[in-house]
């Protein structure tokens, strides 16, 4: 173990948005550097894990929770939101209805999970399938900036899982925000009461481990 205190973080991140917007594709691209047009639908939830060497002294593990897009699953997926510290909300730039649903997803997110300090968890908006973007839909970019401010998004990015555009940047932006929150929010010491054996390796996603 390094004496200079190498830090390890485990963060739980939700990926939400309407069905067929490419949530699974974004995750597969980000984690496996791979794209296929035919991922099976997500029923309930799927997972992926991404390890980031953030800087010389920090390793970050992102636990990505890929939540079913069909809104019917909303009731069932409530338990999946617990202890998340960040979220991507995804829409498909070729389908206006998926953008209209973004507000609903954001409101649902804020309703289901909050940071320990009672604030909304940071959310980044992903305008996916930008390689297929039809003209005029997104209007001008300033509008989306305003939209994000108004709806409480930390940032937004144009992404394409197919062409590998914007995903790394979006993730860096979200993680930076999570780290910033992590430093300002008090949370219980890992060795405090109520931490059970077995949480050590993955249960308590907010914990900071110093070795």
């Amino acid at each position, binding site marked *: 173990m390094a004496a200079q205190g190498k830090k390890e973080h485990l963060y739980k991140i939700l990926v939400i948005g309407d069905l067929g917007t490419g949530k699974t594709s974004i995750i597969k691209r980000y984690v496996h550097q791979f794209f296929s047009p*035919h991922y*099976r*639908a997500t*029923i309930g939830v799927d997972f992926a894990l991404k390890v980031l060497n953030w800087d010389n002294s920090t390793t970050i593990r992102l636990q990505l929770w890929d939540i079913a897009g069909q809104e019917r699953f909303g009731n069932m997926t409530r338990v999946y939101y617990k202890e998340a510290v960040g979220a991507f909300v995804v829409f498909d730039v070729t389908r206006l209805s998926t953008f209209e649903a973004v507000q609903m997803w954001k409101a649902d997110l804020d309703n289901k999970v909050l940071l320990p300090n009672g604030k909304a968890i940071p959310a980044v908006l992903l305008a996916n399938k930008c390689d297929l973007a039809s003209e005029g839909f997104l209007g001008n970019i300033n509008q989306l900036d305003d939209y994000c401010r108004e709806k409480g998004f930390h940032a937004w990015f144009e992404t394409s899982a197919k062409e590998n555009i914007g995903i790394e940047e979006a993730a860096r932006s979200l993680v930076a925000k999570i780290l910033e929150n992590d430093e300002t929010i008090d949370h219980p010491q890992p060795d405090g009461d109520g931490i059970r054996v077995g949480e050590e390796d993955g249960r308590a996603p907010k914990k900071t481990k110093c070795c």
Partner: protein
Amino acid sequence: MIVSLLQGDIQEEYAAIDKDTEQLTDRQIDVDIPRCHQYDTLLSSRDGHCKFKRILKAWIGSHPALVYWQGLDSLCAPFLALNFNDEALALACLSTFISKYLHNFFLKDNSSIMQEYLAVFSQMIAFHEPALFNHLDSTAFNPELYAIPWFLTMFTHILPLHKIYYLWDTLLLGNCSFPLFVGVSILQHLRDDLLTFDFNECILMFSDMPDIDIQACIHDAVRAYLATPPSTYLRKHDHTYSPPTDVPPEALREPLSLDVLRQESCPHISAHDVIALCGLEYHALGYGGGARESGPTHSLRSPSSPLQRRAEVGRRRGKSGKGGRKGRKGVLVDIRSQEEFRAGHVPGSLSLPHQLAFQPDGSLTPSLPSSSLSSVRTSRVIIVVANKGKSGPEFARQLVRLRFPHVCVLHNGAAVLRSLGLLTALGEDP
């Protein structure tokens, strides 16, 4: 000839259903079909996509109380692939299958049905795989995180078509609870890995379902199913359940509420099943039934189901071996105080008063009854007999922590045995 008559009706019905009018769910169907079992040449063909959509729309149209859940597409896939040139037959199969195995799973609000199924599944994991149950429980890796697609699609979302056919050939012989044991069996086949995995590794494993030996898996599922007293997996939402007749009503049990199901790790068992397992007889009350030779009978649920019959044939062909004797399949563990035990107990039951049974480290306090219990730990169903309250479920949970398999709690406890006239005072043992 009957088939051809049926065929005629099916065709007419299918023709009469509106499959063309645009509906809200069309968009979902359009997104789902091109990513459903697309390695199959028929299902990935243009024609296949059109047929697929028509059948799904026809199912929705003909079931106004139910809705399209993602996963219905996977469920439909094998029927379409097998009846590619007969859409009406594919729909008839799909409808019949869903009404038998997935009754009300496709309601708009299916949460009570799904959650009950998962909670019973969790108890079946504890019943058959205590060590794995303990591990998954301590890592908070719950069935809600991985088993929804298993049951909502009857495994069609996680298995390729050729394995689905193999699995369903057996599944179709069983009742609507049999899939629980397929789930248990899948976990058993992944047990060695799962036991060493932390939460992250567990979730990753199920996100990308590993290749499983489906034949071995089915074999073990049937074995687990037959080794499980039917009353232990009783569900409120099992529409096929009809209680056995000619049995005193108190010998049966009613389903537990969802809250209780979730609180208690171990299933409840009815006195009726206990009587069969332990070779007891309905003494009083003039009920003739008594125990049957083969232990708790799955005929409780579906009178001599094909799966049962097939297993019976297998059993008869197999070694006659031990265990043939009546009443050698269950052991009663009476956890009430010694005074209560003396005043009335079932002859042959083990007295392990709860307050004295466990040492501070959780292990069993050495005693004659506790070593008797340990000696039958893998060969008997362990039935905890307690007074009403939390004692029984807690005792059972502790046995599961100690990795005892086949642990269950007698529903309504000692009071039921008393009212059935099965308790004998010490010294009066026959």
